[in-house]
């Protein structure tokens, strides 16, 4: 009997060879408005001396509306909100300031220079069936901790290329999982929950401590930079990337502002 299925499947396979094409993955459509939320976590480390880069991130145009989340399957999460929760695709503040932008030194740090990662873990918390923070950074070699504050099952899947992807699960509140540290720089590692399709977070993995995430007012600060000329990249999940070049001579403070275009 097995033979029979196989022959059917086999003949299917014979017929399968045909066209060739490129894979495309569906990107979820974005949409608008501004809802200020809590500021994402600040970067891990900075040394006292050195130069500082500060700036503001803004956007032009109308911010797409963040889709509302239907949490009716998860009463325990739903009850944590007074108004209908939304996704956090575009978190805009007053005067078109843009939060949740990952700003980092893309190049300019001498290749041989090594930075010791902090031993304190970077923590992501699942609370109200959303990730906190939504955009954040971590250093190569730094411990990564995943917490669950919800009495429901979340799985935490990391989609990565330079690092090993993983998919683990936490079915109850109070669980804490520490993952082996990331081994290679990668902007960004995507985190998602497949039980709750709306849960997404983005993690920038860097070899140095020169990164920050813009706050609600769009501001960010990267400090402790040794003298040099740097390419700074600002990454946003919907609006893409922008770069700027900044030269630091000593313990000075330089400005780099970024403006994204909302379509």
């Amino acid at each position, binding site marked *: 009997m097995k033979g029979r299925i196989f022959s059917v499947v086999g003949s299917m396979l014979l017929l399968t060879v045909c066209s060739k094409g490129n894979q495309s993955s569906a990107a979820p459509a974005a949409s608008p408005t501004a809802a200020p939320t809590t500021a994402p976590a600040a970067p891990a480390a900075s040394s006292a001396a050195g130069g500082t880069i500060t700036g503001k991130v803004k956007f032009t145009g109308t911010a797409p509306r963040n889709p509302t989340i239907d949490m009716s*399957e998860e009463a325990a999460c739903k009850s944590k909100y007074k108004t209908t929760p939304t996704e956090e695709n575009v978190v805009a503040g007053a005067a078109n300031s843009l939060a949740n932008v990952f700003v980092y030194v893309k190049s300019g740090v001498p290749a041989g220079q090594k930075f010791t990662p902090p031993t304190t873990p970077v923590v992501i918390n699942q609370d109200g069936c959303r990730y906190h923070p939504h955009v954040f950074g971590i250093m190569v070699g730094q411990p990564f901790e995943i917490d669950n504050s919800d009495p429901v099952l979340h799985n935490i899947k990391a989609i990565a290329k330079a690092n090993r992807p993983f998919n683990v699960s*936490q079915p109850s509140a109070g669980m804490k999982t520490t993952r082996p540290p990331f081994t290679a720089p990668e902007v960004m590692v995507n985190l998602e929950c*497949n039980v709750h399709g709306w849960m997404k977070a983005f993690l920038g993995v860097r070899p140095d401590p020169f990164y920050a995430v813009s706050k609600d007012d769009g501001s960010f600060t990267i400090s402790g930079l040794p003298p040099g000329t740097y390419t700074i990249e600002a990454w946003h999940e919907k609006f893409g990337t922008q770069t700027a070049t900044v030269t630091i001579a000593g313990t000075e403070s330089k400005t780099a502002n970024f403006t994204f275009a909302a379509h």
Partner: protein
Amino acid sequence: MEAADLGSERGGQQVIHTLLLLTLVAVQDTAAGKMVYTKWCAGCHGDNGAGDGQGARHMVPPPRDFTGAIYQIRSTPSGQLPTDADLLRSIDEGLGGTAMPGWKSRLSERQRRDVLAYIKTFSTFFADTTQRPQPIAFSKEPGGDGGADALKVGRQFYDSIGCRKCHGDQGRGDGPSAPTLKDDAGHPMFAANLHENWRFNGGGTVEDIYRRLRTGLDGTPMPSFSDLLEQKFLTDEQLWRVAEYVRSLSPKEPPVVRDVIHAPLTKRVPHAPDDSAWTAVDTYWFPLVGQIIRKERWFAPAVSGVWVKAVHTADSIAIRVAWDDRSQSPDTAWLAHLGRVFSTLSDDSTREQPVPWPDQLAVQFPVSSPTGMERPYFLMGSPSAPVYQWRWSSTARATAIAGLARGVDRFDPIQGAGGGIATQSVYDHGEWRVVFTRALASPDTANQLPLRTGRAIPVAFFAWDGSNGEHGTRMAVSTWYFLALDEPVPARVFISPVLAMVLTLGLGMLVIWRAQQKTSYRRQQ
């Protein structure tokens, strides 16, 4: 040999020799492996291992992209590389329920090891010495397995962990999150139907299931549950119970096709799918495959088989068809899934807009009782030689009509009251159960097959899962099988007492034998 030499005086030299030899062997391995790969694997997995071979556009799930070194079937924790033994297992046995065939019988052990070494070269992770896979020290299945108490514990944790979110309350892959699932590359992904363990990627035994629960299937939404043990959410024994519970949802043995459906004679026609009279009736399983003969071809059918029961009375027949379907279509919740299916597969000319299509089922017979072995074309007949069909659809009225099909694209309903058939259907946690009833005799013997006892009537089945984009030629098909309306046992005028004794004994044994057959075939409800 290496170990022994290490102790000797010339150990260092020997080691260098061995190392040289090993690198040489490795080089040879991958060179030989490349030849095997190009010949046997590249058509699906692509010349550069990116999962983009010629056949790739026709498969869900698509062939693995080896460049990311993300493997589902491992003995290592989530995030780690697989061991060579893990990869060899996948190459030897294939991945159940997917297009990935097993190669054990086709390639020599040497060839399989060579190709294994070669596919590892597609990713730099395998060369990275910091990424050594460390297999989990799996425990052995504890005793007391399979008992009702063990299964109860398993079911309890199936619920409390939240497996039902994806796999559904009864495990048929119809959980609330099911329509949203996709793999790392955004390809559509079904939560496995836990009632079909013969289609599990990594094997269907309790041990296989336990291992998948420990490791997860990396690259898919199916996570690892190992952390639950470390955090004492449940014990190792309880996780084994979950695996046993999952195993218990599938039949003891994979279903076997028996060509002839026997419809016993009953006193009454059970019109309702859940009429208790059906429980005593034997079940027959028939596999369905994608329709790949006529355009548009369909390589990703969602319905993998139908379970059929039939009975008849002196003047009527009832056929009950049950099949697993994750969605009660039409259902807009599945539209995004449908879009993913179309963008992964779409090959044939037209690119259709996703629409919430209904589910459908067709039962097919010849128009008239065939003489000899001659039968109409199984794929819905032809313009000159039509077939007689009962077509059911899950639209609001969920009714069926009888008609004549003249090829895949032409169906002419028979006029009047559904063409003489009646149906009742139930959708229950990922399963459709539909009962068709009709009079044995037919008013129009030219077009509607009269159903008679004592001869084998050809029958075939077709199924469409609307939420998977199936309609028209995009369907799952079976080949011809047979339906036999069993005749009543004629009353004997005289039986000698001795003969009677022999007969009862014989019958008793026959009944026992049949009962055993039945329990192994009948699906667990």
